């Protein structure tokens, strides 16, 4: 479980997050939704210790993120940020290889190499392994970064808009894989998505943010109602049902 208690974040005079408190369940897929600028990435970055926590408390499996050694957290939680700009010029397999860093600290063994190969394979990246990242398409690049977090093999996965740049087939494949990680391997996934229908179809739990506050949370059927959606996004939309889950008609 990730516990978030009374977390506020300010930049200058502007309040980005205002007393956010929630619990992200273990062994489930949680989707963070909300309009641009709602504070989703900020919240995720606070959990990922990428931003200094100003107010409140965040604990991952009982480990306080401000006090726990970084490596101990890296063995429990992998993070993919929204912006994946990178300093070095790397080949795909080298990037994915860095996912094993928390385990081997610079001395990879055969098990690490095997994990990297498996992650490459899982995302259809094996043929691209020797290519440089700046020689890939946006979607291939995105998949390489997701593969890196997979290689980290942690109980928790935090992904900020992992569907960015992915085509329909790869987007669905990624969601299905995340779903099976949760169902079959008991992992916990937190992801930010903009297309609410992915949250509707795959997530177990939804947390909706707007203007730095949580405006709704719960299972998809409870959160994805016309009234709540209108409150979050400020526009009317119809919601139907498909295979027992909500289907939001936001595009028409």
């Amino acid at each position, binding site marked *: 479980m990730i516990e978030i208690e009374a977390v506020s974040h300010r930049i200058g005079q502007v309040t980005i997050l205002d007393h956010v408190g929630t619990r992200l369940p273990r062994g489930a897929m949680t989707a963070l939704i909300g309009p641009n600028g709602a504070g989703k990435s900020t919240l995720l970055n606070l959990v990922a210790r990428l931003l200094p926590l100003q107010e409140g408390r965040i604990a991952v499996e009982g480990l306080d993120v401000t006090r726990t050694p*970084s*490596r101990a957290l890296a063995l429990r939680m992998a993070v993919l*940020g929204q912006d*994946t*700009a990178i*300093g070095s010029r*790397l080949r795909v397999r080298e990037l994915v290889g860095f*996912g094993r*860093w928390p385990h081997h600290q610079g001395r990879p063994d055969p098990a690490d190499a095997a994990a990297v190969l498996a992650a490459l394979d899982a995302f259809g990246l094996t043929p691209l392994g020797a290519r440089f990242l700046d020689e890939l398409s946006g979607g291939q690049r995105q998949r390489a970064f997701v593969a890196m977090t997979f290689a980290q093999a942690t109980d928790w996965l935090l992904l900020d808009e992992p569907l960015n740049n992915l085509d329909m087939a790869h987007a669905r494949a990624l969601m299905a894989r995340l779903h099976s990680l949760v169902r079959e391997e008991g992992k916990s996934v937190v992801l930010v998505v903009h297309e609410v229908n992915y949250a509707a179809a795959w997530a177990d739990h939804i947390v909706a943010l707007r203007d730095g506050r949580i405006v709704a949370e719960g299972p998809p059927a409870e959160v994805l109602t016309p009234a709540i959606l209108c409150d979050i996004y400020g526009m009317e939309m119809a919601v139907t049902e498909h295979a027992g889950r909500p289907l939001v008609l936001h595009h028409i």
Partner: protein
Amino acid sequence: MATVLFQTVAANRILTPSIMGFDALYVLMQTALVAGLGITGFALLPAGPKFLIEVTALVAASLMLFGTLLGRGGQDIVRTILTGVIFGILFRSLAGFLARLLDPNEYAVVQQASFASFSRVNAELLPWAAGLAGIGIAGAIRLAPRLDVLALGRRISVPLGLAHERMALLTLGLVAVLVSASTALVGPVGFFGLIVAGLAHGLTRDPRHAVLLPAAAMIAGVLLVGGQTLFERLLGLQSTLSVVVEFAGGMFFLWLLLKGRIR
């Protein structure tokens, strides 16, 4: 080698300690010394202690300089470069101002001290400089795997469990020691670091520091020793090697850049 490390911390291939105002700082120090002590005082300074004091002062000053530059605003490259350039100009104009107060003879001494020279190296200082450089290089190679992670940038290295801030500071410390030792020995060499780092990246095409760092050290050695030999033995010239090294290296660097081998 220092430049490779520096670029790793900065997660940027264009920055060098010299662009960030380091050379200007050295010139300012030399000018201040001459202004404070006069020519005779400056010339009488015992070489060993002067070298040690220079290194210490440069290390301290550059840690402060690089630390503030990269500490908080590290993600914002444009602002970082701008601040560095402004610091450089500040140091340069301070040095220029001090130089105006000097008489022409004193000014000539400063001039001489502010250009890199590989032939005027004081032999007494070599063991000291070599020792310092040795410590710096050994430290850097020991840290090589962690430098690889550092080079990914904070957003990726922190989730991987690297103590990013501590590592960045440690690396800057190494940069300061390496740059200071060589600058205090031969004077500022400016563009040279950029050439060597560019060549090291371009020729090895390997992001691992365990490969990059020795390659950079070797390239630097070959360029300097080769250039010097060519110059003195074959051409019998007495010109300043650093000028030519920078020119030839710069051309090679440009060529690599245009061919797209360095990114």
